[in-house]
């Protein structure tokens, strides 16, 4: 029964009756749209985690320093032997930055990331409103969406604290499978391109190519290309079909590694575009394919894959159109 329809009783006080009368004119308060709430929660969480996580870390470091001071004699001995801390291994380099993304290590202040900056094991990346692509030392392209926080815990392991990432193992280039640890479960790529997004109460993993294994406690599930697994914190796992191309992947495409076209055949460039956009290349006929195989490109241009395709083909006799998951290459009309 609605509260406004509830009958009054004789025992109700005047105050209660007037409150009911007043609320009879009221409507429920507006609830924020769930999608907006989720988006803002994720963003604010990443901000809060970056700010207060570092404070907590600093406190722990402070505690450790105090403990070390209490053991002064031991500390002096270590200093006198000239033992210096071993520099942490470089596990990645910054390949692309869009907007501002921040990095920190060992509780130091966050600093804006620059292209080519080395990232040592233990580094924390916080993208805020920016996006960043990393080249892993073990191979592969790791890309972080806006409002993401990630800790590089090793050469083949990272902890996704909040937000979304995309990983392209680039086939044989990777020396070791990447493991992504999250609060909901651990992902391990098996020669693949995948996207993982950690929301407040679940982990979503979409696979574009290859296979990803997800482990949570003693449960393991695999997802293959064209599948999305949603792992709830409760342990519930749902499997859905997804497109491996389109808007959902667009942010990762914008962070695609550079492709130098100078001296390369057009067909190689088309393969790269297809790989970066989750599509396949189809030729309208044998003549078109022959032209693509024989055309050698010169020059340099740095754009996202599809705009770059348009720019490159504009200088050739070929054209393209997107037809579902295909990039159809055709001749330009005479």
């Amino acid at each position, binding site marked *: 029964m609605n509260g406004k329809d509830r009958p009054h009783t004789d025992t109700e006080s005047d105050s209660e009756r007037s409150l009911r009368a007043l609320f009879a004119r009221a409507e429920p308060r507006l609830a924020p749209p769930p999608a907006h709430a989720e988006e803002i929660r994720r963003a604010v969480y990443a901000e809060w985690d970056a700010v*207060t996580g570092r404070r907590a870390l600093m406190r722990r470091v402070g505690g450790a320093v105090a403990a070390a001071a209490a053991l002064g004699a031991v500390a002096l001995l270590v200093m006198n032997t000239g033992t210096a801390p071993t520099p942490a291994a470089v596990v990645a380099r910054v390949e692309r930055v869009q907007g501002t993304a921040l990095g920190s290590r060992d509780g130091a202040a966050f600093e804006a990331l620059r292209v080519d900056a080395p990232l040592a094991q233990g580094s924390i990346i916080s993208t805020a409103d920016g996006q960043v692509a990393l080249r892993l030392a073990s191979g592969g392209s790791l890309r972080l969406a806006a409002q993401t926080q990630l800790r590089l815990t090793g050469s083949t392991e990272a902890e996704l604290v909040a937000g979304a990432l995309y990983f392209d193992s680039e086939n044989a280039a990777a020396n070791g499978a990447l493991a992504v640890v999250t609060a909901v479960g651990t992902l391990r790529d098996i020669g693949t391109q995948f996207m993982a997004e950690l929301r407040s109460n679940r982990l979503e993993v979409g696979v574009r190519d290859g296979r990803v294994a997800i482990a949570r406690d003693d449960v393991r599930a695999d997802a293959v290309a064209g599948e999305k697994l949603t792992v709830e914190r409760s342990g519930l796992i749902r499997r859905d079909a997804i497109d491996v191309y389109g808007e959902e992947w667009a942010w990762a495409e914008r962070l695609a590694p550079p492709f130098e076209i100078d001296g390369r055949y057009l067909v190689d460039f088309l393969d790269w575009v297809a790989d970066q956009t989750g599509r396949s290349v189809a030729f309208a006929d044998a003549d078109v394919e022959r032209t693509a195989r024989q055309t050698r490109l010169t020059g340099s241009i740095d754009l996202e894959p599809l705009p770059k395709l348009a720019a490159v083909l504009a200088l050739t006799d070929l054209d393209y159109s997107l037809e579902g998951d295909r990039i159809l290459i055709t001749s330009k009309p005479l």
Partner: protein
Amino acid sequence: MTDDLQDRRLVKRLLAHDHEAFRQFFDGYFPRLYRFARTRLGDDPETTKEIVHVSLSKAVRKLGTYRGEAALFTWLCTICRNEINDHVERVVRERKHVVLTEDLPDVRAAVDALTAPASDEPEANFRRLETTRLIQVALDQLPTHYGNVLEWKYIYGFSVEEIAAKLGVGLDAAQSVLARAKRAFHDVYGALTRDIVTPNADTDGDPA
């Protein structure tokens, strides 16, 4: 425990990176701040999203400066209000260079026709809407669980037993929360409506 003390403790836990505190903070304050912003932004959901996002992000960055001198919600509203003011100033600056399509005479007439009040009794309609709005504002000014229990009881019609179950407390505790919520609502709503003088004012807006 007083609300101020609760606010200070919540902030202290947030600064200590307590994830449960973040959940309480976001679930408790985000919907209220969202409504605060949306009513001031012409009911525009996209701009509201942007402003609330920026406001809460700034708030978590400045948590260390919160001293508990004002309620946490008041502190958040101050940050949000500043963001709204900046936004409005930006919009005004940009509009100086834009000719709105709606300003063309023919279009203006059509827009006016569309936005004319539907009610035959605009004043009564306005009073009803204003009362509704003030009730909602008062509910949002209360501690989160006070606003929720009043909405559950008087708008959704939940029984005390149902409210107790939703709060995860016993019947007596739920009744106690309701009693405190009613007193707090009475104070806040009374303060909101005290200075309002309406022609032919009747008992509209007086919960006592």
